[in-house]
């Protein structure tokens, strides 16, 4: 009897597995699930990113004279002019919520692909769901290197990760040593304690060893901290030659305020994007952040050399009133990459979209990012990425590295708090 039950159950499962995939081909409409934090600490970044996605959708669905994929002509020509519809959900910065929402988007809303989710931790859980269901997941901004090291088949990342980013920081330190005839011996690492900060710190620690710098101090903290006195006190005591912070927006602001209060004067500060590139950060810290360097995959000051950046920025500004900054610029690029793949797939069948993503090759002149291309390696990581460094000078970020792309010279050392007044 028992055996019979097992047999029947096995048969049911087998039939279930063998059943043809739901007919998702040739839809009039392509539905994409978009996950971002729309409440909580990172909500502003999430809103900016959603605006960037909406702009990309508008450009695909409408007819625009812009040199980006799918701008000219309405809809997706590969699918008979099908239009893209996005379903935006709020994951609140919580990995479990992201996981649940991804599940719901796939099973209830029947989305053809997933996109998002800023926080590396949330991207991690949400993309696991997509992997299990065999639905393509494109990520445009999560920078934890581990995400593309999981051997996933359905996960693609257009953005550089913290390995690339941190590499450029250390190259810069070495080049600056040569240029200015200085010698850095020690680095200090300060990071928020979720996956983004922790993975970033791990990579930086490995690179420091490789480049021969001593990690004088390494500090993890909660991004929701009300008080960073202890953290800054430790940094001040260790006083490393170079400070490498990885922070979100609110903690970055709190750090600058605390450093000012406690008279902590790093000579060189190279931040890991995120909080430092949120326009809110410079707006609220103003001249207190003068001299701060951050890695940034996007540079608005390159608009002078590339009119496309200015055109897209003007359209973006109409949506939320804010300038295009790093994270939304990457979201815009990532979303167009996904749309481009679906168009070439000529189908909404997940496997066809996946194959098209693998074959992606968007040239540099169609990108608002300073990259050489969007082209995925066998791990699903964009191999055409290039990271740049920017420094806050006179209240604005200007590109300072690589030196051949630089719009201004490096300000080193950073002014001390006494010199700032």
């Amino acid at each position: 009897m028992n055996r019979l039950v097992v047999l029947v159950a096995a048969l049911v499962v087998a039939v279930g597995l063998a059943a043809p995939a739901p007919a998702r081909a040739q839809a009039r409409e392509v539905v994409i699930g978009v996950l971002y934090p729309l409440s909580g600490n990172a909500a502003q970044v999430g809103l900016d990113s959603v605006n960037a996605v909406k702009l990309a959708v508008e450009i695909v669905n409408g007819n625009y004279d812009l040199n980006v994929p799918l701008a000219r002509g309405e809809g997706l020509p590969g699918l008979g002019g099908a239009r893209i519809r996005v379903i935006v959900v709020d994951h609140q910065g919580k990995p479990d919520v992201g996981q649940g929402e991804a599940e719901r988007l796939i099973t209830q809303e029947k989305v053809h692909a997933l996109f998002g989710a800023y926080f590396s931790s949330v991207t991690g859980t949400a993309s696991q769901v997509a992997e299990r269901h065999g639905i393509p997941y494109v990520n445009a901004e999560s920078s934890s290197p581990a995400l593309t090291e999981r051997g996933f088949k359905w996960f693609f990342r257009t953005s550089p990760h913290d390995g690339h980013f941190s590499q450029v920081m250390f190259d810069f330190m070495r080049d600056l040593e040569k240029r200015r005839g200085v010698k850095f011996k020690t680095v200090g690492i300060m990071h928020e304690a979720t996956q983004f900060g922790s993975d970033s710190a791990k990579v930086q620690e490995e690179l420091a060893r490789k480049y021969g710098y001593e990690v004088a101090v390494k500090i993890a903290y909660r991004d929701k901290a009300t008080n960073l006195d202890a953290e800054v006190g430790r940094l001040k005591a260790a006083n490393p030659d170079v400070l490498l912070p990885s922070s979100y927006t609110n903690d970055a602001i709190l750090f600058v305020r605390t450093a000012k209060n406690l008279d902590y004067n790093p000579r060189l500060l190279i931040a890991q994007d995120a909080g430092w590139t949120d326009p809110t950060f410079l707006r609220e810290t103003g001249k207190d952040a003068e001299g701060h360097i951050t890695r940034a995959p996007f540079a608005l000051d390159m608009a002078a050399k590339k009119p496309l950046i200015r055109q897209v920025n003007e359209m973006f500004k109409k949506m939320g009133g804010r300038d295009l900054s790093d994270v939304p610029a990457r979201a815009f690029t990532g979303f167009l990459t996904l749309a481009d793949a679906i168009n070439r797939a000529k189908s909404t069948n997940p496997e066809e979209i996946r194959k098209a993503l693998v074959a992606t090759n968007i040239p540099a002149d169609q990108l608002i990012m300073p990259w050489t291309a969007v082209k995925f390696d066998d791990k699903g990581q964009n191999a055409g990425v290039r990271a740049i460094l920017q420094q806050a000078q006179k209240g604005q970020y200007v590109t300072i590295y690589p030196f051949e792309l630089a719009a201004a010279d490096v300000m080193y050392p950073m002014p001390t708090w006494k010199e700032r007044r």
Partner: protein
Amino acid sequence: MTAEVLLQGLVGGLLMGLVYALIAAGLSLIFGLMEIVNFAHGEFLMVAMFSTFWAWAVVGLDPLAALPLTAAILFLLGIATYHGLIRWILGGPMLAQIFATFGLAVFLRSGAQALWGVDFRLVKDPLVQGRLELAGLFVGLPQLVASAGALAAFAALYWFITRTETGLALQATAQDRQAAALMGIDTQRMFALGWGIGAACVGVAGALLGMFFYVFPDVGSTFALLAYVAVALGGFGNVPATLLGGVVVGVVEVMGGLLISPTLKAVVVFAMYLAVVLWRPQGLFGRF
């Protein structure tokens, strides 16, 4: 770790702890009066910080100048909360009381997000800014003024509840509401007053924090958690003891970060909380 860094940490923790204490005092007052934990306390703080910010952004009023206004707004918010919500659930089951203030918290937070967006905002160039340097120690002036203000507000609160007739009536209601009612005290009025004053405490704290801390819809939750610890340490319902509780939380937070590890500073604070709750469930100086 040099002595200088430790001393610096001690001073910083002490200053911040006084502000935590004032936030906790409001919580403790309400709890002592009617045994209701106000889960919307952090959101009250958020409302206070936003009203401080808007007073500055719209009218150009400095956070310190706007302090009486902020305290008054929060006082009214407290009274309105009592009459609009708490009064109706007083006889209800425990769970209803918990969820009522929790729901209020979610309502206020989402309301702030809908009205003012999710961005971080800071008051720029407040009247009090900069820092003092004393023998190698740095003290932020806004922090110093904030802690002095918190201490003053605390003293005023203490004077009010122990030296005025209304304050004594408040205490009598807290001790035994039936007996107080028999003595001719209008307990409904006392409850409303307690909510008003409890909220006004956060109003003052919010205005003081507004001088140097950013505000956004979720800002309350970070402070509220620490305030709960401060209340538990001092003792549920014992308002003066929350002063000690707040300062201990502030100092332990920084010293734990300096001496053990910044990653573990929340662990240290909450381990202390658990230890106290296990050892003395009523808090160090609790009267229950």
